[in-house]
């Protein structure tokens, strides 16, 4: 039986999402031997079973676990001792050094509970027997009262069998409870108080986990899962009884492990906090319906910002009409504009570009054109570039000019270089139509960008740009 080395994981990312790391750490802190791992894991797994046994009369395991009266007032810190404290708590051994973490171990079990994991335990007939054996093991081990070195003791026959059998469970549970410590600051629950509270806890855990640690948690839990399957195989060889129960619980654990590993991967903005107000239904259907309605209204608000003239409209039906009208008008506009574009003679376009360039440069030199300047002048010098690699400084210069006005000067060498290829362009206009189109793309990129930019920036930058264009024009005239 191999035990994972306790210091496998970097401790920086660990406390946020790994309960099993905490478990390893606590083990390392309590005792030095790696062979203690199975013993501890069986103890960790025992609280669940024990509490279920205690809660068998209640029918809901949650009731059995949450209200532990002698841990009500404990502080909420010290997560590294989490599982030790769990053991202490659920075996009713209150060791003073681990009692502090009792509260923080509770949310983990809360996360476990609603998924019906322990219900499988409840339905399991061989489970009470196991629990009884485990309690015997606990009594024999005699851990608790501040002497963690005794953990190394137990290796008796039946206890060993049950221990190994439980090991897979323990692993699974530790991987299940990955997102739990993020919600560890949640106050101790006196009693289970409804769905909303539970959702809140899980949501907190979801929101807090960074994606990196979430992926780490996923692969870690995957590794643990593999290990646990190995170990459960060994357990099945060792002890024939409780086999079905083992596989049952293992399946549940696996499923939950997958769930809890995939949950933190969702972006936190997907989570919508829903809380049942007074008098509202708390069953899952109503909650889901409320989430849906909230999403719809959120998207309506988004659309309201997009559609012009939709701000004044009250009422969802009218707003939807507005949206439909707007979409229709845009589609009609696309049709109309494509008709207009189709009527343009392309040969004229691409051949006339040099003339267009000269005209536009003359226009752009007048200061009146500063608002229309990007559309015309930025389109003008580009057809002179017939070598693709010379586009680079120009594109940079354009965006630079957008951002800060001082960087217009690098444009001049670019233009000087493009002037050299002027005649080559003029000769090969007709077959370079595709290239022209590709260059025009950059014109229009700059057009789009310029439209988004502030008019002041354009006005100020157009002065220097006009100057550079004038120099280009003069060079062209030479």
């Amino acid at each position, binding site marked *: 039986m191999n035990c994972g080395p306790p210091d496998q994981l970097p401790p920086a990312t660990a406390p946020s999402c790994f309960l099993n790391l905490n478990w390893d750490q606590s083990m390392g802190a309590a005792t030095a031997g790696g062979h203690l791992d199975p013993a501890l894991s069986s103890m960790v797994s025992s609280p669940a079973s024990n509490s279920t046994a205690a809660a068998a009369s209640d029918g809901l395991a949650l009731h059995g676990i949450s209200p532990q009266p002698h841990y009500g007032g404990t502080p909420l810190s010290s997560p590294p001792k989490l599982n030790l404290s769990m053991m202490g708590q659920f075996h009713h051994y209150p060791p003073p050094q681990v009692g502090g973490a009792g509260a923080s171990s509770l949310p983990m079990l809360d996360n476990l509970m609603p998924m019906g994991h322990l219900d499988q335990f409840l339905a399991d007939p061989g489970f009470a027997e196991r629990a009884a054996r485990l309690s015997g093991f606990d009594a024999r081990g005699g851990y608790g009262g501040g002497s963690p070195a005794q953990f190394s003791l137990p290796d008796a026959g039946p206890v060993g069998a049950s221990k190994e059998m439980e090991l897979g469970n323990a692993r699974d549970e530790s991987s299940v409870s990955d997102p739990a410590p993020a919600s560890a600051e949640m106050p101790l629950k006196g009693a289970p108080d409804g769905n909303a509270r539970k959702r809140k806890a899980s949501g907190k855990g979801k929101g807090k986990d960074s994606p990196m640690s979430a992926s780490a948690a996923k692969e870690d839990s995957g590794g643990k899962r593999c290990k646990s399957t190995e170990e459960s195989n060994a357990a099945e060889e060792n002890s024939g009884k409780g086999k079905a129960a083992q596989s049952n619980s293992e399946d549940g654990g696996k499923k939950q492990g997958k769930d809890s590993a995939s949950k933190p991967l969702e972006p936190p903005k997907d989570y919508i906090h829903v809380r049942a107000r007074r008098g509202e239904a708390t069953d899952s259907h109503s909650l889901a319906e409320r989430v*849906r*309605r909230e*999403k*719809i209204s959120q*998207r*309506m608000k*988004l*659309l309201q910002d*997009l*559609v012009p003239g939709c701000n004044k409209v009250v009422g969802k*039906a009218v707003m*939807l009409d507005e*949206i*439909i009208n*707007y*979409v*229709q008008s*845009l*589609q009609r*506009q*696309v*049709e109309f*504009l*494509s*008709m*207009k*574009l*189709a009527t*343009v003679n*392309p040969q004229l*376009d*691409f051949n*006339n570009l040099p003339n*267009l360039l000269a*005209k536009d440069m003359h226009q752009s030199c007048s200061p009146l054109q500063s608002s229309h300047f990007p*559309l*015309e002048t930025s*389109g003008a010098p580009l057809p002179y570039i017939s070598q693709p*690699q010379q*586009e*680079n400084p120009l*594109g*940079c210069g354009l*965006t630079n000019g*957008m*951002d800060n006005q001082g960087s217009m000067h690098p444009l001049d060498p670019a233009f000087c270089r493009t002037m050299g290829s002027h005649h080559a362009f003029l000769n090969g206009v007709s077959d370079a*139509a*595709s290239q*022209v*189109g*590709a260059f025009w*793309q*950059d014109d*229009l*990129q700059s*057009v*789009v*960008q310029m*439209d*988004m930019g502030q008019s002041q920036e354009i006005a100020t930058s157009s002065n220097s740009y006009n100057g550079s264009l004038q120099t280009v024009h003069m060079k062209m005239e030479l």
Partner: protein
Amino acid sequence: MDRKRTTPPPPNPNPSSPALLVTRAAASPSKAHMLAFHFLRALSRIHRVTPVRRRTRTIRRAAYSSMARAAGPRRAWSRALLGQARSRRARTLARRAVLVRRRVLTAAAPSSPAARGGGRFIAAGGETSAAAASRAALPPRQAGEPPRADALRRLVPGGDAMEYCSLLEETADYLRSLRAQVQLMQGLVDLFSCQ
């Protein structure tokens, strides 16, 4: 059309320039750049190869598919548009292949049964596509969904299969792209008309 298929699309002459632009710009300007890139490439190709009478339709389709390409495959509407374009292309290719075969066969033997089989194939193809379009029923309307939602569904590409909540989300995204496309085309028309 034939030249369009035989000649490969002109490669991006300057692959690093859009990257430079993208690094400076926010998300939506980069999308606008991609939109302009795709649309202008398609436009220059259309102006080269498509006859004038079919140009309006082709440019409109190019506008929509360049929108979809710029939006990427992550959106449902863009996926629907690209799927439409792909199926249209496949249909035209099949039709042209059938026409060519029929022409060859009629040249060889005027009353060959294969020619009639080809004609039947066209009819059958049109019939099945129409039947599939009519069979694609709208999803049952959920509670709280206004009756006008179906009109919106018909407008947004791929909206037939969408649930109301995601329909609104896709509509928002589609609207943004459509507006950018209209701005781009308007700018092009202005540029052309100012000469």
